[in-house]
């Protein structure tokens, strides 16, 4: 109740949460919501501008863009949430260990992560995906691995500010194991940091999914996917701009909404 009341004072955040909620509902229920099948082709009505029949127009194969956008939300959300969860889990584990054990463990972990971070995320992801072959699972794993280092660094510095508190010394004198101290004593104290981290990484992950699909390393045609739709529509955007604008706007709406929420969590 307190949170609901707090939202009234920040309409931006309320709006962002509403946008996210709508996308989640669409991702779950799109089969009941779409007016046309997302892969249904109607070659007689290609490049039709938005109208009462086709709210967002049709693409080069006469498919209804509105239906494809609704259907595409599911894969974007599943892949980005899965990869963020995995990435933050890996990053948190690494960050906790590096900060708690310090010394050689810290050096080894953090320098390896530096190495990984030296390459632009998209370049290395596309190389790996080209080798492994594009699949949803590969996409999730590759994005998770690319996100983890950033997360690990933030977690590490958050833990560093806690590890020298006396309650950790008390736990050590009690004879607690390293794992207990990490997950039961330290982790609960950085939950706030993790929430902010998760939302920020989620926005990054959505962007990465869309970019990789756009480049052809992600979701494969004819499955509806926002990044792929931008890519497919790109050659025709001069004659039919709505083919590109609609999926791009969908991506933007998600990312902006998540960033607004992250900003709020941080303060």
């Amino acid at each position, binding site marked *: 109740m307190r949170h609901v009341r707090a939202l009234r004072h920040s309409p931006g955040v309320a709006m962002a949460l509403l946008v996210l909620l709508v996308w989640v509902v669409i991702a779950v229920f799109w089969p009941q919501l779409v007016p046309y099948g997302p892969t249904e082709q109607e070659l007689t009505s290609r490049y039709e501008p938005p109208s009462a029949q086709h709210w967002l127009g049709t693409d080069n194969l006469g498919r209804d863009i509105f239906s494809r956008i609704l259907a595409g939300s599911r894969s974007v959300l599943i892949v980005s949430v899965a990869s963020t969860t995995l990435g933050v889990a890996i990053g948190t584990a690494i960050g906790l260990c590096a900060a708690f054990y310090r010394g050689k463990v810290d050096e080894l972990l953090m320098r390896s992560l530096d190495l990984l971070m030296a390459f632009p995320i998209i370049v290395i992801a596309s190389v790996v995906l080209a080798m492994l072959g594009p699949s949803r699972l590969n996409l999730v794993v590759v994005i998770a691995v690319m996100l983890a280092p950033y997360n690990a660094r933030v977690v590490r510095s958050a833990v560093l500010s806690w590890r020298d508190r*006396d*309650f950790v*010394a*008390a736990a050590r*004198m*009690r*004879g607690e194991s390293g794992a207990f101290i990490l997950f039961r004593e330290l982790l*609960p104290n950085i939950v706030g940091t993790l929430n902010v981290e998760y939302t920020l990484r989620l926005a990054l992950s959505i962007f990465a999914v869309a970019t990789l699909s756009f480049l052809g390393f992600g979701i494969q045609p004819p499955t509806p996917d926002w990044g792929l739709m931008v890519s497919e529509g790109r050659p025709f955007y001069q004659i039919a701009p709505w083919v590109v604008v609609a999926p791009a706007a969908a991506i933007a709406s998600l990312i902006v909404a998540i960033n607004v929420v992250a900003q709020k969590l941080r303060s």
Partner: protein
Amino acid sequence: MTEAGPVLQVEDLSVDYRTGAGLVAAIRGVSLAIASGEAVGLVGESGSGKTTLGMAIMRYLPANGQITGGCIRYQDTDLVPLTQRELSRIRGNHIAMVYQDPSGALNPSLRAGEQIAEVYRAHLGLNRDEARGRAEGMLELVGLPEPHRAYDRYPHQFSGGQKQRIVISMALAMDPNLLILDEPTTGLDVTVESDIMQLFADLRAKTSAAILFISHDIGLVASVCERVGVLYRGELVETGDTEGVFTHPTNPYTRGLLACRVPPGVSKDSRRLEPLPSGDTDAPVGACLFEPRCAFRKPRCREQHPALYPAGSSQHSRCFFHEEVARAGPPTVTASDGRAAVTGDGALLEVRGLRKVFRAQGRDLVAVADAAFTLGPGRILGIVGESGSGKTTLARMIAGLEVPDDGEVILSGVDVTKPANKRSVASRRSLQMVFQHPDGTLNPSHRIRQILRRQMRKLDAGDVARHDETLAELLRAVQLAPEHLDARPRELSGGQQQRVAIARAFCTGPQLVILDEPTSSLDVSVQAAILNLLIDLQRREQASYLLISHDLAVVRYLADEILVMHDGEIVEYGPAADVFESPQDPYTRTLLSAVTARVGQAPLAAPATQPETADEPRMPDPA
């Protein structure tokens, strides 16, 4: 009012803070005046508003603080309505402040001397060389050796005490008429503190500045100030001549504060401390703010708020019954019940040739060199030394938090020279520790019940079925209520947090408890209660203590034996009475003299002619 009015006159000043819970009054109608050449002390515990008052006079209140009433007159100017621009001229030239933390007041990327010279360039328009000359003069004045070389060094190249000297020289640079000192020696070692206090005494002979000295330490205030005000929750509860207030208090709070101090040179066997009741409950609206903790309270105190009444020869007291308080005389000495702990034979703890070297930037730093001592059952060993003397490292090695490079730790005949998690459960159970910072000692995300139960479960302390019973009994022993079990640490006060930490140490029936500065971050009124608790528990449980403290009065009070550390070495070790009465080592003598200088009650150096002050109308002598 006398011919030359007071330099500073604060009248009926009120300050509020906006917080999440609404407006909180920090200063409630405070009036005080300081004349030129006079030093006025302001004492109070944490949260009493003493720092807020200093900040308000400087008009440096944080953004959520606002002056809601009253005026602050500097000479003839009211500072309250001034703009920041007008203020900055007065602040630089006329009013200066020295803060508690010297490192925060110095810019780490500028040379120390230039930070002083900057004052001259900005305010007097001097050129580089002239400003440098003046700055070096100031460094010399505050007693820094080789001012010419000190000028070119950076703040991090100075020790804490030297940094505070630099800050003081910056404050004095423009020869201010009003100097506000806010806990200027808190956090410094005792020997450094006594040097800085001597510096203030010397400076008072050279300048005629009015001084407002803010401190929680009654001894320090008594050594510097002619007059003093006692603050309680934003309100002045007693004012008057330092000597009168501190020897014949007319307010129950002042009296309580004096009574709960650890008297210098006294041992636990001869006297019991007299703590103030805890201040965890609020007084009802319109009542006397001190009523819930007051030993003299009457029904009237709950119905009416007392004004500041003239009391005694020079004093004013905010108490309806100040005459009764004055008649009660200085706080009485309660004799200890004389029950000494039963001490057994043999050694509970034996430390042999313990050594620890830290490597920092390619250099070896010997933190502890070949420490050796034994501690018998039921004894209290005090370890004293200044920061960096290795006393904490020694304790951490004994606790198993640090692995020694050499030597052994024997506990009840068992070699425990290894990290805590490699020790047997029995060893871990019998050696416990109470840490310095109450706010760091308990995990903020756990409830008190969780913290204590985990301790008992992990260390197999007795029958699991009886844990709840043990817990309830323990809670009574440390004077906490059962509902505190469901609280989280941040909902408790510092004193309550430390009680929980003590309960955690004692819930496994330990034979040896290491106390690392157990009361140094607590207020005096809380400190007395915690020290009494520690003594009671020690007698009840027949435990031994290893007490680390920089506060020699506390160590003298508690310890049976004393170990003095200096630069990692044990320089003196023996029975407490011997070490304090006839110290053998020169370092121990320095340490002890620094403290005795401090407890001297008379002002160190009052100016030759003391101007008449016009604070409040003085009462004619009742005689």
